[in-house]
């Protein structure tokens, strides 16, 4: 990304003007949810949260892939790490996610498990080639953003004839989760700041039901303060006009139609399935499983892994935080027994989780 372009979207004068417009044109409360964890952090890091008018209620949604990785999924990859012949390949932010008894991949690694933090799924192929007597299992966690690259990696593995590379598929899909939130009677969301990265792949169409079926607005948004403010101003204006729209304010990175090639590779390897979301529970059709033609690379099949509901953590209100029913500081455990050092619930686990962001950035 061009640095000068980014500077433009951080311009204090531009942002000040947008904040004034927002304040002037907003005559009632606006409850907006940013879906993506990167937006959560951007809103705090830029100091935007401390500058938004009081009438703007900021909610963080279920768009942090680490946060929504279900306990039973975490348990599955921790169990897999115990196998002597397995090397777990993962992005770094899964290393601290706690499973049963607070155990995580960092602890497993200290106990002798082979865990390799990688920067690209293709690095996992290299790892597999270098360790022919082991099976490299890549932890397929994330949304539509990462799924195409992982699918492409599987295609590459087959081309290279690698027999010791597998994926543990725990991907989730964003629009399906937003539908589930809007169907939930406990939520009150006026509009969504839609994720930039996910949208580069899926485009605008999968979100259109938000306006047509639910009469709420949603804007695909970049990660700079002016991007976020412009989307909020748009949503306020549409509401004042008595309408709801889904639009793309991030055209410098996201095509309205998304990336057809990425979707093609994604859906050549994966297909929709039901998925468990940490803190929320089962959302039908919100996951991606490996298609039958690719079973030879499916670690769920090879290792007979079963993903099941587990009882919610006592006192933890992460589900309500992820749904925007409460803000993190309204949870009784926040900052008391639940901290980044000892996270109780998913939202405190990831650096992009909403509770972790409140803990880390909010000036009391």
């Amino acid at each position, binding site marked *: 990304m061009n640095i000068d372009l980014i500077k433009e979207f951080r311009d204090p004068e531009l942002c000040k003007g947008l904040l004034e417009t927002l304040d002037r044109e907003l005559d009632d409360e606006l409850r907006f949810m940013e879906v993506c964890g990167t937006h959560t952090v951007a809103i705090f890091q*830029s100091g935007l949260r401390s500058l938004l008018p009081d009438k703007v209620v900021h909610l963080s949604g279920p768009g942090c892939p680490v946060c929504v990785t279900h306990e039973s999924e975490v348990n599955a990859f921790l169990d897999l790490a115990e196998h002597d012949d397995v090397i777990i390949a993962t992005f770094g932010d899964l290393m601290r996610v706690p499973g049963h008894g607070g155990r995580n991949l960092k602890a497993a690694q200290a106990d002798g498990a082979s865990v390799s933090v990688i920067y690209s799924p293709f690095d996992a192929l290299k790892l597999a080639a270098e360790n022919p007597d082991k099976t490299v299992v890549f932890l397929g966690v994330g949304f539509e953003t990462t799924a195409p690259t992982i699918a492409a990696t599987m295609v590459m593995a087959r081309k290279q004839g690698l027999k010791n590379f597998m994926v543990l598929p725990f991907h989730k899909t964003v629009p399906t989760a937003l539908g589930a939130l809007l169907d939930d009677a406990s939520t009150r969301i006026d509009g969504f700041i839609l994720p930039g990265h996910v949208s580069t792949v899926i485009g605008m169409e999968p979100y259109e039901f938000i306006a047509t079926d639910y009469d709420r607005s949603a804007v695909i948004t970049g990660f700079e303060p002016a991007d976020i403010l412009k989307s909020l101003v748009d949503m306020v204006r549409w509401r004042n006009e008595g309408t709801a729209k889904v639009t793309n304010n991030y055209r410098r990175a996201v095509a309205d139609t998304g990336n057809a090639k990425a979707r093609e590779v994604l859906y050549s390897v994966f297909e929709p399935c039901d998925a468990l979301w940490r803190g929320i529970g089962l959302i039908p059709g919100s996951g991606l499983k490996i298609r039958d033609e690719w079973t030879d690379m499916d670690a769920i099949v090879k290792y007979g892994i079963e993903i099941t509901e587990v009882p919610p953590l006592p006192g933890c209100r992460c589900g309500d935080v992820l749904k925007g029913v409460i803000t993190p500081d309204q949870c009784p455990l926040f900052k008391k027994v639940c901290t980044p050092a000892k996270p109780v619930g998913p939202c405190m686990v990831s650096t992009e989780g909403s509770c972790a962001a409140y803990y880390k950035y909010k000036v009391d």
Partner: protein
Amino acid sequence: MSEKVLLDYGSGGRASQRLVSELFLGQLGNDELNRLNDAAELQVSGRIAMSTDSFTVDPIFFPGGDIGSLAVHGTINDVAMMGAIPRYMTCGYIIEEGFAMDDLERIVTSMGKAAKKAGVSVVSGDTKVVPKGAVDKIFINTTGVGDIIVDPAPAGDRARPGDAILLSGTMGDHGLAILGTREGLEFEAAVQSDSAGLNHLLVKLVQELPEVHVLRDPTRGGLATTMNEIAGSSNVCCELNETDIPVRPEVSGGCSFLGLDPLYLANEGKFLCILPEEHAEKALEIMRADELGRDACRVGTVTDTNPGKVVMVTQLGGKRLLNMLEGEQLPRIC
């Protein structure tokens, strides 16, 4: 085939002696070290600053430095942050069996050069060779001592509301250079470690401005961690202006790509200076006159509003905490 370090070299016998006399004394030797006594006999009096550090950096050679010079810089900088002139240091090498002799020579030579440049004598040392796999290539421990030349010495608990917070240069260079080399990442522009001995500049600073309250080098954990330590020790709020904190565009770009924050990355040639407001300009003048402080700038003010916390005033004028990191920074999924 090039020569390797064998277990024999750490046996204490002739092989060890040869290694010490031919390599270590050749590069680090001085009157005291050359005596090869069990301990060094030193002339010290009054208040001294002493600091020890172990260096386990991976990779051992990186753009802008290596583990040998880093082991000197890290320790003498810590001594100098106490308002002291570093005089002597020790070094302990733990080497993995099979380590390339050429690399060892390169490291010891680099250590010798760094010590000489800093005006510090290596007066005692130790070499151990351990079986393959017992350490990762090479670890070095160094201890340094120096005479404290100001009273009271700068300390982490001396920051006071109203003090100015100064920084000697850009943040995150060392941390990103190490990470980039370790992971084989290529950045748009070369990122170099800032590893350097700061003692000459620091001595000049405290000699001219003994009123300095705090000196710290933001090494592991970076600026954010160091500022939090100071805010906690002094029970004050350190308020920083985001726009004033210097970060090279290539470091900023690399961090953005990896999902890292340069303010948590290690620095090995920078320092923080907190001192009464009225001396801020003079301190900046002294720092900028030195090559190692040419990018020095004021980055904030000590206040009494949120004791124990570091508050960042963002480019937009909003406020957020700059908290301590929980564990190491890990690249994110998306």
